[in-house]
Each structure stands twice: as C-alpha cells, then as structure tokens.
C-alpha cells in the first residue's frame, strides 16, 4: 500500500477527490480479497504525468471541458491512482506499457444507454 498524500496540502476539491479515491481503494481491496493489492494515488501533477490512466481531459454534463478549482487550477488529475494485484507499482518499474488506445475522457450518458450484446469484435 503506497502513501497517501498529505491532505493539508490539498484544496477542498482535491480533498474530495482523495476521499473518493480512498473509498475506491478500500473497495478494491475488499473485492479483490485474497489478491495482494497495492493501491496508490497521487495528488502531484508531475506524478500524474507518469501514470498510465487519467491522461485525458474531462467533459462534464454541462459541456465544460474540465473541472477547475475556484482558483482556476485543474484538480481532476489529482484523482489518478493505480494498482497492481502483485503488489508492485508497474509504472515505476518501467516495464508497464499502456496499449489502450484511448485517452480516458468521461462523458455524460443517457439513463439507459442501450448497449448491444453481440459476438466479440475488433474495435
């Protein structure tokens, strides 16, 4: 289990994100059960740049392109986190490659998105 950032250094929005992350981390640890789990998060933008996920911009339901703090700084990337079920930080080992092709943008969606179930296909 890696370190939690010092909450005293965070603004309100960042604290909220950290709370969400910590709750999610506890959930992951519970759900994965017997697996050894390392779950970390970072409030550092510099660290976030080195992380695989959470690299995209965010679009909120009102069409804003990103959530910002009152002071105008972007806070959402502070919610980045990663885990490895082997207890290793795969990013920091340098062996981890993100072959997922997309930036992980979040969009609002209708209450029933009606996805299709069909035989697996290439994207």
């Amino acid at each position, binding site marked *: 289990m890696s370190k939690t950032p010092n909450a005293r250094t965070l603004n309100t929005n960042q604290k909220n994100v950290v709370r*969400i992350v910590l709750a999610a981390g506890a959930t*992951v640890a519970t759900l*994965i059960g017997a697996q050894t789990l390392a779950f970390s998060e970072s409030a550092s933008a510099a660290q976030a740049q080195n992380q695989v996920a959470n690299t995209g911009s965010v679009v909120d339901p009102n069409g804003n392109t990103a959530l910002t703090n009152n002071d105008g700084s972007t806070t959402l990337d502070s*919610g*980045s986190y990663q885990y490895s079920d082997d207890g290793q930080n795969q990013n920091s080992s340098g062996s981890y490659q993100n072959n997922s092709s997309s930036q992980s943008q979040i969009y609002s969606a209708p209450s029933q998105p009606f996805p299709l179930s069909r035989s*697996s296909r290439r994207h």
Partner: protein
Amino acid sequence: MGNYTVQFTAMGSHIQAWLNAPSLQGSQILKSLPQWFEIWEAKFSRFRPTSELCDLNRHAGEWMTVSAPLYEVITLAVQGAEATGGLFNPLILPALRAAGYDHSFEAGDFVPGPAALARTNTTADFHEIGFRPADRSIRLPAHSEIDLGGIAKGWSAQQAAGILAALGPCLIDAGGDLVAVGSPDESGGWLVRIPDPRTSEIAHTVLLCDAAIATSGRDYRQWVRDGRALHHIIDPRTREPAASTVLSASVIAPGADGAEAEIWAKTMMLDPTRAHPFPALLFHDDGSIAMDSEFEALCRDEMQ
C-alpha cells in the same frame, strides 16, 4: 444522479463503462478503467509474448507460480470445462492457431496464418492441468497451450463492475459481453439490446440487474483460407472450427458472473441441445430464433 461513461480499447475489443453517480466528480474512478484492463491484458493475452499467460505456455509441463488473477481465471476455466463436459476447453489454442487465428484481430484486415503452421492431432486433457494452491502454482500438460480469450474478458468486466459497484449502479461492455450491477433508473436494471447477427437489426432487449450477458458467435472473427470459411469457435472434439447450426448464442448469468456467461455462450454454440443452467437465446443459420422461458422472462422488447 446521472450516468457517466468512458470508452477505450483493450483486449482487442471496444470497452465502455457506465457509472450512475451523483456528479461528474464522483465518477472519476472511470478514468482508471483503461489502466485496470491494461494490467489484466498484460497477464491474460496470448498475443503479447511478455504476458504471464505466454510465459506459462512456454513452461508447459513445469510447475510455475502465477499471479492471483491468472490462477483464478484458469481455475474458473477448468471448472467451466468440467461443468460443460469439456465442450468449453481452454486448451484448444493449438487448434485455434492451426485454423489460422494466430495473431490478433486488433488492427487492419485479418490475414489468417498458414494451415501448416501448427497441425494438431489432439486436444490436451484439461484434467491434467495441475493446481497447487499452497504456492499458487499451475502446471499445464506438456506441449499444451492455454487460451483464456473470452473468459478473461468476462472476468475482467466482472472485476471492473465489482469495483465500480461500490460507487453506484454500473454497466461494463467488454466487446459485446456485458456485466450489469444495480439499476440506473426506475426500470429495475440496465436495458441491453441483442441484434440479429444476420441483419444487425435489434431482435430483443433484455433487462439486466446484477447479471452478465455474453454473446458468442460465428458472425465476427471469421476468415477465409484456401476457399474455406473458418472462425474462432473451436470444437474440442474435432479440433476444427465448429460446424454448428448456431450463428450466435447469448447467455445470461446471474450474479454478474461474466466468466460463467462466456463459458456457457460458447458451449451453446457447440451444442445447442445441451441442458444449460442459465437463460439462453440462439440465432440459427436458417433464420430461426430460439430462447428458453427464463430468457423470455427477461425480455423487455416493448422498451427497445
């Protein structure tokens, strides 16, 4: 509450997840999904030489300590093989490769591998896969190879849904196999459409709550080699692409069990007359559609 979604590609498929959350900020966990799938794909992919699965295949005949996820998925695969009398068999990889499916469908037009590449005379006996829980080791039968394709994807969707479910109702679409938890509205679940594989028109709409649906079929991941139409559904009894009358099979498993849904969808492709534990819908080559009463009870066609 609103629905928030993220989509990306992983495991050779389009992946999309929806989370019903009180705010955009409460849905930020969605941004981690690509990373989770990447971690799982790095373990389960047969197309990545560096994957844990490829390493295990290279060491067939030897005991090898593996990660908890790989141990779990192989355990589920063998349990599925037992439950289906071997119709679902994770050891069909040599036959799959011999049929030409020796590289990913992920990019560009698929050109099958040569027929002479890996002729196989037998399918290894899944009973010979050894498990040693004490040190989490597995031993594959010598000269065998394991493929976890669909079941690994179903398991990954289930894991992702399990994590997201702590934050709200959620739905994971892993290339057409879906895991649904809770309900985003008063309808009592997530509505999922099933197209007719011949026409692509919506044939049925089902309501899923705490359930998984997997669809296996011959309509995609197919190719022609030497004038013969081939596909990726291997019949372990013949070690050839299945000569099934079923074009696609959809199975709904309770408990958001994506792996079970995948196992039984593939099994129903191979033997549509087989007794099955979960609701099933079959599209046949002749245009007929068959569903059991349990599946029919989940249909909400008036809502499509």
